[in-house]
C-alpha cells in the first residue's frame, strides 16, 4: 500500500523532472531585456515559416528569438546537462558522492587549456580541443598521484585534486601574466563563467561533442551502478573495470571540457544536481543519470533566467550557481538523514 503510493509519487516526480526543462525552456524564451509579448513570440515563430502572413513582425523579434535566446537557452541546457551527468558519472565511478569536476582537476585543467589557446593560439585553434587535452592531463595526474585501485581514499583524492588544481591555476596565472592586457580582459571575462556571448557558432562545436558524450554516458548508465561497487566486486560481476573507468572518465571530461571551453567555469552544478536527484529518486543510476541531465538543464535555465530578469546587466552565471548551489547543498546535507544517499 505505502509502497505503491511511494512508487506513484516517484513516477510522478520522474515525469515531472523530465518535462520540467521543456517547460522552463518555453518560459525562458519569453524572458529577457527585450520585451516581446508571448503572443508576438508565437507569431514570430510562425512568421519564419510564412513571413508573408505576418508582415507586422519586425525582424528584430526574429533576431531576439532565434539568434539570441534560442542559442543561449540551448547552451544553458547543454551545459547544465553535461556538468550534471559528468558529476553523477564520476561520483559513481569513484564510488563517492562528493567527487566532482573540480576535485578531479577537470575544471582547472580545461580552464588552463582554453586560456592557453585563447592567449597564444588565437581563434585559429578551437579552445574546446585544448581544454579537453589539458583536462584529461589533469585527471590523469590526479589519478597517478592519488594512486589507482582500491586504496584511493577520498582524502588522498581530495588532496591530490587540490594540488593538481593549484598547479594548473599557477600555469593559468602564468598565462595571464604573459597575456597582453587586451587578451587578458577577454580571458577574465570568460573565466568568470557566462552564457552571455552564446551564439550558434559556439554551439556548432560544443553541442555535438556534448551530445556524443552525453549519449554514451546515458547508454552506459546501468553499468555505472556496477562500477560504483568496489573494483573487486565489479570485476567479479563480469565488468571490464579498466575499460569502464577509461570510458567514463574520458566522456565526463569531454562533456565538461566542451562546456568549459565555451562558457568558462560554472561550478557546483555537477555536485548539486546529482545529489538533488538522488534525494528524490534514490541511488539507481538508471534514473540518476538521465534525470540529472534533465534537472541540470532546468537548473541552469532557472539560474540564467534569474540573472536575465534581475537586471539588464549580465551577472556571470558561474557566480550565480555557486550562490544558489552552496546554501542548497548545506540544506540538503542537514535534511538528509543518511548523509550520502
Amino acid at each position, binding site marked *: 500500500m505505502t509502497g505503491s503510493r511511494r512508487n506513484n509519487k516517484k513516477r510522478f516526480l520522474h515525469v515531472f523532472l523530465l518535462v520540467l526543462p521543456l517547460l522552463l525552456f518555453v518560459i525562458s524564451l519569453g524572458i529577457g531585456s*527585450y520585451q516581446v509579448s508571448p503572443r508576438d513570440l508565437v507569431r514570430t515563430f510562425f512568421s519564419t515559416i510564412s513571413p508573408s502572413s505576418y508582415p507586422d513582425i519586425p525582424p528584430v523579434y526574429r533576431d531576439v528569438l532565434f*539568434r539570441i535566446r534560442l542559442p543561449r537557452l540551448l547552451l544553458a541546457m547543454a551545459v547544465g546537462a553535461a556538468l550534471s551527468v559528468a558529476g553523477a558519472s564520476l561520483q559513481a565511478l569513484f564510488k563517492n558522492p562528493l567527487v566532482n569536476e573540480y576535485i578531479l582537476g577537470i575544471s582547472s585543467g580545461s580552464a588552463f587549456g582554453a586560456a592557453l589557446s585563447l592567449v597564444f593560439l588565437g581563434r585559429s585553434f578551437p579552445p574546446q580541443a585544448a581544454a579537453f587535452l589539458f583536462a584529461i592531463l589533469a585527471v590523469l595526474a590526479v589519478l597517478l598521484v592519488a594512486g589507482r585501485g582500491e586504496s584511493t581514499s577520498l582524502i588522498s583524492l581530495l588532496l591530490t585534486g587540490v594540488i593538481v588544481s593549484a598547479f594548473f591555476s599557477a600555469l593559468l596565472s602564468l598565462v595571464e*601574466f604573459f597575456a597582453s592586457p*587586451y587578451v587578458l580582459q577577454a580571458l577574465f571575462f570568460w573565466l568568470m563563467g557566462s552564457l*552571455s*556571448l552564446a551564439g550558434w557558432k559556439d554551439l556548432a562545436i560544443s553541442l555535438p561533442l556534448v551530445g556524443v558524450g552525453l549519449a554514451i554516458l546515458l547508454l552506459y548508465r546501468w553499468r555505472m551502478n556496477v562500477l560504483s561497487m568496489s573494483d573487486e566486486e565489479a570485476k567479479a560481476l563480469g565488468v571490464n573495470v579498466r575499460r569502464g573507468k577509461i570510458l567514463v572518465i574520458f566522456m565526463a571530461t569531454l562533456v565538461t571540457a566542451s562546456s568549459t571551453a565555451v562558457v568558462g567555469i560554472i561550478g557546483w552544478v555537477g555536485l548539486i544536481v546529482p545529489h538533488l536527484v538522488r534525494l528524490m529518486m534514490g541511488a539507481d543510476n538508471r534514473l540518476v543519470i538521465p534525470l540529472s541531465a534533465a534537472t541540470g538543464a532546468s537548473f541552469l535555465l532557472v539560474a540564467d533566467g534569474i540573472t536575465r530578469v534581475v537586471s*539588464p*546587466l*549580465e551577472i556571470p552565471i558561474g557566480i550565480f550557481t555557486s550562490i544558489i548551489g552552496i546554501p542548497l547543498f548545506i540544506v540538503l546535507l542537514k535534511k538528509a538523514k543518511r548523509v550520502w544517499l
Partner: protein
Amino acid sequence: MKARKKVLKLMVMAAVVACFLAIRAAGSSSAQKLTLRDNLGRAVEVPSRAGRILSLQPEITRIIVALGAGDRLVGLDYFLRRDDHLFKIIYPEQARLPVVSKPDDSVNKEAIAALSPDVIFASPSELLVPDSIQRALSIPVVALSSQGSFGRLLEEIDFVGRVTGLEARAKELVDYFLENMTAVVRTTSSVPSKERPKVYLAFWSSLVRTPVSYEPVNAAGGDNVAAGLLPSFTGSPGTVVTIEQILKWDPDIILVHGNFLPRERQVTVQQVLADKRLSSVKAVRKGQVFYTFGYWYWWDPAQVAVETLYLAKIFHPERFNAIDLEAAGNIIFEKFYGQAGLFSKLCEVLAFHDWIKKKQ
C-alpha cells in the same frame, strides 16, 4: 529645450574646471614638502621637487614625460615596457630603465628600494599596494588614476606638476586641454537633443562589456546608452550587459575598443557588422560601427583630446567636417610630447589609419 541642453553642457564643463581648481587649491604647500590627497583618499606627504621618480602607473609615467621630467624616472612597470607603443616613441630612453613591477599584480619592493626613488606613483586599483610599499620602504606612494574622468585627468597633470616642480608646464597643458575641449563642446552643446546619436561602446575585448560613463562621447555630442547603469567592476566604470539589451537600446552608433595592435583585438568592427544577432540594430544596418581609441589601461590626455574630435566628426560630420583629424592630432600630440608627426606615427604602429582615413 535646446537652450537648456546648452546651459547644461557649459555647466558641466564649468564644474570640471571648478572641481579641478578646488583640488589645486586644497594642497597645502610648505617649503619642501606638499601634502596631497590621492584617489584612495590617503593624505600623502611628498617632496615638492622630487629628483628621482618611480611611476608604476602608465598614465602618470607618460604625464611625467609630457611635463619634461622623463629623465627623473628611475624605473618602469612591465606594461610600459611591453604593451605601451606610444611610450616607446615619446621616450626612447625607456630602454635603459629597469622593470620593477607589473601594474596591479606584483611589485618587487627590493628592486624599488635599490632605485631609491623620492616618490612613487601607483595605481589605486589594487587598494592595498600603495600603503604596503609606503610602509615597507618609507617612501611616499601616491595612488592616482583618471578612470576616464576629464577632471581627474587634469588633476593628475596638476599633481605631477607640483611634485616635479614643473607647475608652469602643467598649467600650460591643462589650459591647452581645456581649450580644446571647450572648442568641441561649444559646437556640440548647440546640437538639438534629437540629433545626438545613441552610442553603444563595446570595450575591454568583449561585445557585451561597456563603460557606464565615457566623457568623450558626451563632449562629442552623443549619448552613451549605458549611462546610469551601475559599474560592476571595482576600479573601472565597466559593466556587462546582455545582447538583448543592446537590441533594446538600438544604438545609432557602436564603438569598438581599437587601442591595440590589430592582431590583439578580440572584438573587431567586421565581427560586429557580421554578427547576425545584431543585424537589426540601427548601427549595424547602417554600417555605423567604428573603432575608437577608448581607454584601455590608461587614458592619455593627448589621445583623449584627439578622440573627442574624432568622435565629434563621427557623430556630427556636417559640423566638424572642416577638421583634418590627422593634422589636428599631430598638433595636439606635439604640444604634449614635443615631437612632430607623432600622431601619424602612432596611427602607423596601431594601424589606426584604416579607420581614421575612412571617416576623413
